[in-house]
Structures are given as structure tokens and as C-alpha cells.
């Protein structure tokens, strides 16, 4: 593909920022198409963490010495960056967790235990990731909540024809802003408005949304959103929960320990104010520094451009794969690029996802084969697994072409 001047992102230049993309596997250049699983990291993020450890590392919030002070400022400035990135009203609304999964467990446990009673209804959708299903099922072992499921239409959109009935009487509506299997973007605001009108709390699993779209929590209309740094060019070991300050304030603590208290006596404790109330123990300090750097990196690219880039790539992928393979390929999810992100679950001939992925790996094309932590969705789709390719800022048309050629090769290899 020739580069044209009016592209949303200059991927050729940008790829230089990602050391791992210079690697070869099996003699081929790495074609990384598993960013929905986890994104690669630019050197700006890696250097920020490394420099921090080499210059300013100390535990935070407790020491009066220079390093401790620098470390605390680094942590809190990362919190401000993340808050700003999603349009939060205050950094106090951003809780650092170990990943998005912990963020959702925090809400289910803290808000859930304080607010749910036997017989209460929690509405989920069938396209949810396990992280937004299993915590509710664990809670359901202790409080007899009823789970209701929003179904899908034939294109993998949420089927909202019965939305009003579904949310009627519900205490919670919790759903993903973008499916990590189908790529579907869900109408967050519409669902949130309906849910709030019905008096329900709204949590949004924004793991696949925040890394790929401009995010403004006020616009989304949810009470809580959860996301992970590692899917947005940041490090492992850190995620974030955003919540409305008044709701977080009213919630009981989740994990107990250092930092999350104002006072501890033998007979009880007084929790600290936000955000520390929900951050027990030594936080992921260097990881927060990396998270902040990731947010800086993405902001410099511009989230509008990131989204435009992915729409371009999505159009290219849908078009070229369909042109090449016709009805030998089925790509799940909405056919309209504006309604989806760059995540493509493929069914190709009758090849098993594992076998496709194996042949692709031989050519250094990395895709995910499996259930993508969405087994209820797999059952709903009537499959055990899918082969999933997903793109991010560093991918371009040549990566889609490599995928395409790899599929061709897999088809030949297993032809019979």
C-alpha cells in the first residue's frame, strides 16, 4: 500500500515507536493483530517507567523525603492524566486497580453488597466478557439476584427492541461499550438513559472502547466505567475504575489495608477519602507512570485520529477479505465500519481457529484463536471458538494483506 498524505495516522513513522514491531518471527516481520487481547507498548511508555525506577522510585503517600514526594507526585499526576483523558470531573473519580476485571469486581462487591437485595434484577448482555458476568454470578451465590440478558440481532448489534421491559424494575444495567469478539459498538448513551430512567445503576465495560475512541464520561452517561492500561499502550498490572464521585463516596470500601484508611483502632477503622479509600496497599506506582505516558502518547496522536484510522482499516479489511474470499469467509459483527471497531472474528471455510492461527503464526501473523473470555457469546453464536484479528494504531493495510495471504495459505494447507 502506498502512503497517502491524508491518512488519519502516519503508521510508518509511528511503528518506529514500538520496539517489538522490529522483531522477526520465523523469518518474517511481526504482524501483530491481537491488540484486543493486549496492545504493544511504545518506547515512550517503557522509558517513562524505566526512568522512574532509575531516578525517582519510592513508596508513595507516606514519606516526607524527596524521592517519596516525587513518586507521589508521579502517581497523582498520572491519575490526573487518566482523568483528563476520559473527561472525568475530578481525579478523585479515578481509582487505580490491577486491571479492568478488578475494577468491575470492586463495583459488584462494594456497590452491589451495599445496594442489592434478594430478588433484585441485574441486566447484562449476551456479548459480555467474563469480567462482566462472573462477578455477578459470584455475588448471586450470596444475594439472590436475577440476571437478565439483552439478546443480539443477526448482525451482532444488541437487540434493544425490548429494552424498556428489560430494564423495568432493574437495579443494575451493566454492559460493554464495544464487544471484544464482534467489534460491535453499543449505543451506550441510549441504554444508560433508559436504565437511569428506570432507576438502575449503570456500569460500562469500556475495555475495548477507551483505547480506540474519544471518551467523555459525561457523554456516556454511565455511573461507572472500567478499563485496562495494557489495551491502550500502557503496562500490565494497572487498570482504572471511573465512578461518579457521589456514588464512590457513598460506597463501603472493598479491599482493606494501608493507604485506604484515615484511622485504624483495635475496634474498627475510618476509611480515607477518595480516591484512596479504594486503593488498599502499595499501588501500582511505576505502572501508573506508564499509564500516564500511554495516555500522553494516545493524546498526542489524537483520539479522533485513532478512531478514524481504525475505521479506515476496518473498511479496508472488510472489503479486501470479502473480495478475496467471497462466501468462504464470514466476518462476525456489524458490516458498517461506523458501527464497529477493528476487531474481526473470522470463520474461514471449515478450518478450526487453532489451525488458522497456527498457519498464520508460521508467517509471524499474530491472531487470537479461542473463546475470547466470552463463552456465553460463543454458545449464542453456536461456535466453540473464533479466529480473531484486531488492529490498533500501529497496524496498516499491509498487516491486513498479510492476514489475507495467511488465510489463503491456511486454506491451501488444509484443502481436501
Amino acid at each position, binding site marked *: 500500500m502506498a502512503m497517502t498524505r491524508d491518512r488519519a495516522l502516519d503508521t510508518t513513522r509511528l511503528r518506529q515507536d514500538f520496539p517489538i514491531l522490529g522483531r522477526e518471527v*520465523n523469518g518474517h516481520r511481526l504482524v501483530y493483530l491481537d491488540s484486543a487481547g493486549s496492545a504493544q507498548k511504545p518506547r515512550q511508555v517503557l522509558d517513562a517507567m524505566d526512568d522512574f525506577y532509575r531516578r525517582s522510585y519510592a513508596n508513595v503517600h507516606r514519606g516526607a523525603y524527596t524521592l517519596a514526594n516525587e513518586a507521589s507526585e508521579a502517581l497523582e499526576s498520572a491519575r490526573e492524566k487518566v482523568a483528563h483523558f476520559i473527561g472525568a470531573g475530578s481525579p478523585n473519580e479515578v481509582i487505580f486497580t490491577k486491571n479492568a476485571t478488578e475494577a468491575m469486581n470492586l463495583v459488584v462487591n462494594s456497590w452491589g453488597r451495599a445496594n442489592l437485595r434478594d430478588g433484585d434484577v441485574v441486566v447484562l448482555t449476551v456479548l459480555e466478557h467474563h469480567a462482566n458476568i462472573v462477578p455477578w454470578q459470584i455475588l448471586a451465590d450470596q444475594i439472590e439476584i436475577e440476571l437478565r440478558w439483552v439478546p443480539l440481532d443477526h448482525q451482532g448489534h444488541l437487540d434493544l427492541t425490548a429494552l424498556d421491559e428489560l430494564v423495568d424494575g432493574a437495579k443494575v444495567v451493566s454492559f460493554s461499550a464495544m464487544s471484544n469478539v464482534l467489534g460491535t459498538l453499543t449505543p451506550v448513551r441510549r441504554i444508560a438513559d433508559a436504565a437511569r430512567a428506570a432507576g438502575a445503576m449503570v456500569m460500562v465495560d469500556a475495555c475495548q472502547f477507551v483505547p480506540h475512541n474519544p471518551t467523555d464520561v459525561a457523554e456516556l452517561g454511565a455511573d461507572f466505567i472500567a478499563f485496562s492500561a495494557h489495551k491502550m499502550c500502557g503496562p500490565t498490572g494497572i487498570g482504572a475504575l471511573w465512578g461518579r464521585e457521589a456514588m464512590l463516596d457513598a460506597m463501603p470500601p472493598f479491599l482493606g489495608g494501608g493507604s485506604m484508611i484515615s484511622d485504624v483502632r483495635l475496634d474498627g477503622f475510618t476509611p480515607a477519602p477518595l480516591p484512596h479509600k479504594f486503593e488498599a496497599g502499595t499501588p501500582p506506582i511505576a505502572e501508573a507512570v506508564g499509564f500516564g505516558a500511554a495516555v500522553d502518547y494516545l493524546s498526542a496522536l489524537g483520539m479522533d485520529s485513532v478512531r478514524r484510522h481504525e475505521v479506515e482499516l476496518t473498511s479496508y479489511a472488510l472489503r479486501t477479505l470479502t473480495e478475496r474470499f467471497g462466501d468462504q469467509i464470514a466476518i462476525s459483527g456489524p458490516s458498517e465500519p461506523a458501527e464497529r471497531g477493528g476487531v474481526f472474528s473470522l470463520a474461514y471455510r471449515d478450518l*478450526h*481457529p*487453532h*489451525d488458522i492461527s*497456527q*498457519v498464520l503464526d*508460521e508467517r509471524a501473523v499474530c491472531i487470537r*484463536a*479461542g*473463546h475470547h473470555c466470552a*463463552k456465553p457469546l*460463543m454458545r449464542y453464536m453456536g*461456535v*466453540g*471458538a473464533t479466529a480473531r484479528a484486531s488492529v490498533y494504531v500501529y497496524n496498516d493495510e499491509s498487516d491486513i494483506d498479510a492476514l489475507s495471504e495467511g488465510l489463503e495459505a491456511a486454506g491451501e*494447507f*488444509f484443502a*481436501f
Partner: protein
Amino acid sequence: MPGLEDLYREIILDHYRNPRNRGELPTPPAHRFEGFNPLCGDEILVYVDLEDGVVSDVRIGGQGCSISQSSASMMSAAVKGKTVAEVRDLTTAFKGMMSIHETQLEGTDEEGEPPPDSGSDIALGDLEALRGVVKFPVRIKCATLSWNTLAQGLDELAADEST
């Protein structure tokens, strides 16, 4: 770096394309064992008829990749007519072959040789073709899925009978 041909031997592809003993058996009298691979969602069904401690018939159902399907197909051919004790020994031998040996993972050239501690003198026959799988650690679970399903099923049966 091992190549695709180490994994997908011709005989494996043959069993994948033409699976042996595919289907179901009426239960009872047959026993039905179910297994799945949580990593990829593959599911396998193993039906066995047992007569006087001998596997008189076997059928394979479910879905999976070429490795899990061909391994199940080969297994079905290998166990038919064997006693439960013989099936157990064969399973041990097969899983021995499938266990990861450092030296092989390092990518030395001993593809053909049996690992030094496989130690058993049970002939694996066609199953030897699956030896290449150990170089692809994530696929080992695919190759052993049907075997684990059968072994666990037989164990549970034995436990049921002894109580």
C-alpha cells in the same frame, strides 16, 4: 524453530479429513464421557461400549481443531478391542510422549527419537505422528483432550463400581 510440517504430519491430516469412528452410541448400554479445553472452547464426546472389561466399540463426537480431532480419531482406532487396563497403559504411554522435554523444546534435532524417559515398550503406532506436537506447547492440550476425557471417564466408572 519447528515448522508446520512437524506438527501437521500427513497421517494427522488424514485422520482429520477422514475421522475414524465418528458418531454416537446409544447410552446405555454405552457410556458417554465429555471433556473440554477451557482455553479454546473445544469439546469432545467419547462413547464407549464395554464388554467384560474390553472396549468393544467406541465413537467420537464434538468439535475441535485438527490436532484434537485427529488425536481422538487415532485414539478411537487404537483402543478398540483393548482391555481397560491396556487402554490405561496406552494412555500413560501417550501422555508420556506428550509431556514437555526440555531438550526437545530447545529445538535440537532429535525429532524422530523417543524421549529418553518415555521408557515404555508399548507400541504407539500411528500415534507416534503426534510427537511433533510437543514442540508447540499450547497444542499439547489439544492432543491430550480426548485421552484425558476417556481416562477420567474410565476412572469415574471404576470409582462408581467400587462403591
